[in-house]
């Protein structure tokens, strides 16, 4: 296996593990606002002492040597109810005192879930439409391809925004909207591959054996169609994550307080000049993921495309 394929798979496995193990990996509840008045926009590595005072959890900056007093918002007070618990915020906190590390880890879940589900929807739709168009040809082909052309003519973000504004927000909606507006390229690739194979002697021979169309499709066409489609799909996953990020950025994606990398970056724009960490860590995770899928596509192309195998 080529190095880039191995790297991408290792990276994707790591991301998948992070997403699956988020409840165990995240230091805190990603939506928990820890004393925002005293613990917002803390830089990475900051430590605060969490103290339960009645119904509130306060974040103290410093404790007296005997731990009987704590410093919060510039004034010293006595510890009354419970023993202070130190808490380190490895990646800092956001404007509501939420732990950025926990939100980045949980954000992986939403971003990857949306990306994978959307990719599957567009893959299935693209294979179906492209397959039918290529196999049936004629009027059906013309109709389906003009429909794809029509959808192509609109910028995808415009289509997605229009659909999101008319319909609803939330994860399922995003998957459906993105999935139904990103199948066209897959359909085109599928159709052109089928058209190419349909004219070959090998397919005529298979037909001559009297095999049923579904069997021809699954056993003799898909193996040829899938490699280019999968390569394209791997490239698209990265795009989907970026589009979801754009949607979240515009307020149509994953809704607050639930984190996705996109809305984490969106929420950071106002504090970018004072708290770089709020945007940089989810941004880095996003970049890494897109890079991993890019490498995967490249690795798949090398492995599956006979022309690139030299």
């Amino acid at each position: 296996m080529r190095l880039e394929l191995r790297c991408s798979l290792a990276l994707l496995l790591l991301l998948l593990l992070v997403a699956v193990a988020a409840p165990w990996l995240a230091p805190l509840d990603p939506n928990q606002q820890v004393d925002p008045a005293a613990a917002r926009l803390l830089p990475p590595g900051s430590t605060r002492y969490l103290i339960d005072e009645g119904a509130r959890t306060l974040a103290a900056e410093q404790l007296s040597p005997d731990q009987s007093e704590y410093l919060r918002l510039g004034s010293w007070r006595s510890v009354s109810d419970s023993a202070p618990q130190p808490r380190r915020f490895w990646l800092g906190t956001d404007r509501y005192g939420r732990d950025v590390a926990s939100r980045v880890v949980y954000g992986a879940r939403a971003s990857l879930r949306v990306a994978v589900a959307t990719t599957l929807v567009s893959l299935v739709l693209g294979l179906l439409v492209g397959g039918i168009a290529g196999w049936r040809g004629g009027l059906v082909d013309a109709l389906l391809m003009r429909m794809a052309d029509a959808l192509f003519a609109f910028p995808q973000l415009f289509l997605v925004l229009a659909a999101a504004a008319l319909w609803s927000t939330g994860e399922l909606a995003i998957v459906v909207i993105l999935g139904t507006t990103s199948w066209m390229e897959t359909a085109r690739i599928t159709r052109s591959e089928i058209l190419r194979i349909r004219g070959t002697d090998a397919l005529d021979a298979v037909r001559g054996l009297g095999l049923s169309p579904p069997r021809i499709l699954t056993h003799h066409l898909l193996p040829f169609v899938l490699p280019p489609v999968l390569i394209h799909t791997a490239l698209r996953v990265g795009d989907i994550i970026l589009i979801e990020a754009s949607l979240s950025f515009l307020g149509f994606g994953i809704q607050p307080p639930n984190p996705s990398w996109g809305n984490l970056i969106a929420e950071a724009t106002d504090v970018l000049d004072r708290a770089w960490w709020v945007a940089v860590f989810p941004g880095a995770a996003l970049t890494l993921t897109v890079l991993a899928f890019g490498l995967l596509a490249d690795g798949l192309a090398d492995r599956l495309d006979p022309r690139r195998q030299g």
Partner: protein
Amino acid sequence: MRKVSLFWVLLFSLLVGCGPRTSDSEGTAPPSERPLVIAAAADFSGPNELLSSSQLDHEIRSNLFLHLVQEQPDYQDSPPTFAPQLARNHSWSEDRLQLTFELREDLVWSDGTPITADDVRWTWEAQTSPEVGWVYSFVKDSIRDVEILDPHTVRFHFTRVYANQLLDANEGFILPKHAWSELPWAEWRGNAQWFQDHLVVSGPFTVDSWTPQQETVLAPNPRYHRPERPRLDRVVVRVLPDESARFRQFLSGDVDLLRSLPTDRLAEVEANPELTVREIDSRQYNFIAWNSLRPLFADAATRRALTQAIDRQALVDTLYGGRARVASSPFPANVWAHDASLEPWPYDPEAARRAFADLGWSDSDADGFLDRDGVAFSFELSTNTGNQLRRDALLMIQEQLARVGIDARPKFLEIQALIESNNSHEFDATLGAWGIDTSLDVSYAFHSSEIDGGANYGGYDNPRADELMNQISEVSEMAEAKPLFDELQQILHQDQPYTFLWEPPNLLGLNRRIRDAHPNALLMLFDLEDWSLVPHDRNGH
């Protein structure tokens, strides 16, 4: 001042700054090379207040025109007093149905024409003209006639006796009949520029130039009745729509006075030796209105429990660095009618949980949120877009309510869409703000007659509260209504049609070069004619 009350605080978007220039705090300022610059989020909409109104417009017009008397910012312990302005005194008839003003005889418009009783009567005619369509014409409803007794004496005839007669007679600036009566009333609307082209003023400043979407330049009125005022020789109101740009310019010294400082950036202002933060009292409060027309919020016990589940002190500490007050009633604590015995409901999530349990709510499906009869305790909490402070508040409240098992989903609407959804009661809960005015009339928000067509968004309906508001509107001396105000507040406290969130201060950022400025809750540019600026040093700083 009354008109200010009916605006969402979002609309109070004036941000102010001024550029450095030369002046002398003790005497008349020498000419300076750099004018005073006021930065504003929105454009000035022209000098005629009967055509449009915003906080910015009101601030500017208050320096162009005078009232009969000037309301003073001394409303903390008793109803406010009024200082002479165009009128040197006023007197009441025995039955209090007639109010007579004696005008100063030495006052003239900026073109030299005397200001007379004829201007006062004509202004009232314009204010009440259906052709003009002034949105605040309703405040003149109880004025039957304005009679000219002689060129400098004018008498207002009222149809009834009530506490706010002087306030209503004084509402609106006195306008120049000789200059503006040339244009028929029917042609006033949509003709704001005409009034600028035919502008004569009575106040300390006049409009030197008005470039739409760019800037409005004020210059001294040479015929102002205080010849040594104004001290400033030029004031530029510059349109700067972008909030962060305004703040940056303030920090850099290009803007010297900034309204509504972002509270999370106060430290940057305080760290700059050339700048200072001034906390101005305001008469505003923020609230969540619960839509009691919907079954979820119909019960006062539910609304009280919701209030107890919201940590308002944490909101105040986070959003205002502790500079705001937790609110408990529609009459802010700095207003004389406030019931000081009223204690805000404490933050007590345990009590809230118990109350919800008593009301039959439980987490039967273990999803972390309460439900009852198969219906989840879930609702939309809406506010307007483009206001980071409200967004922060909403997301904090969402998290606080989630702690007691309530799913509050933030919903951000463009301001006009929000107003429409509020007016049509098509919302669950909405976060907003009101400014309270001198009339202390809160019936628009809480009287049952205001459910249809008014601003009683949540459909609050309490007959005793209605009765109290009716009685308050009929007392002849406002101070006598204090027990009524107190009882009304106790009822609202128990019923919680609103969760009263906080009373914000107005945080002004000032460049230290500004001297003798006394902004207050009524007007930021209250005494602009007295403002001055310290001279530049040799380096031009």
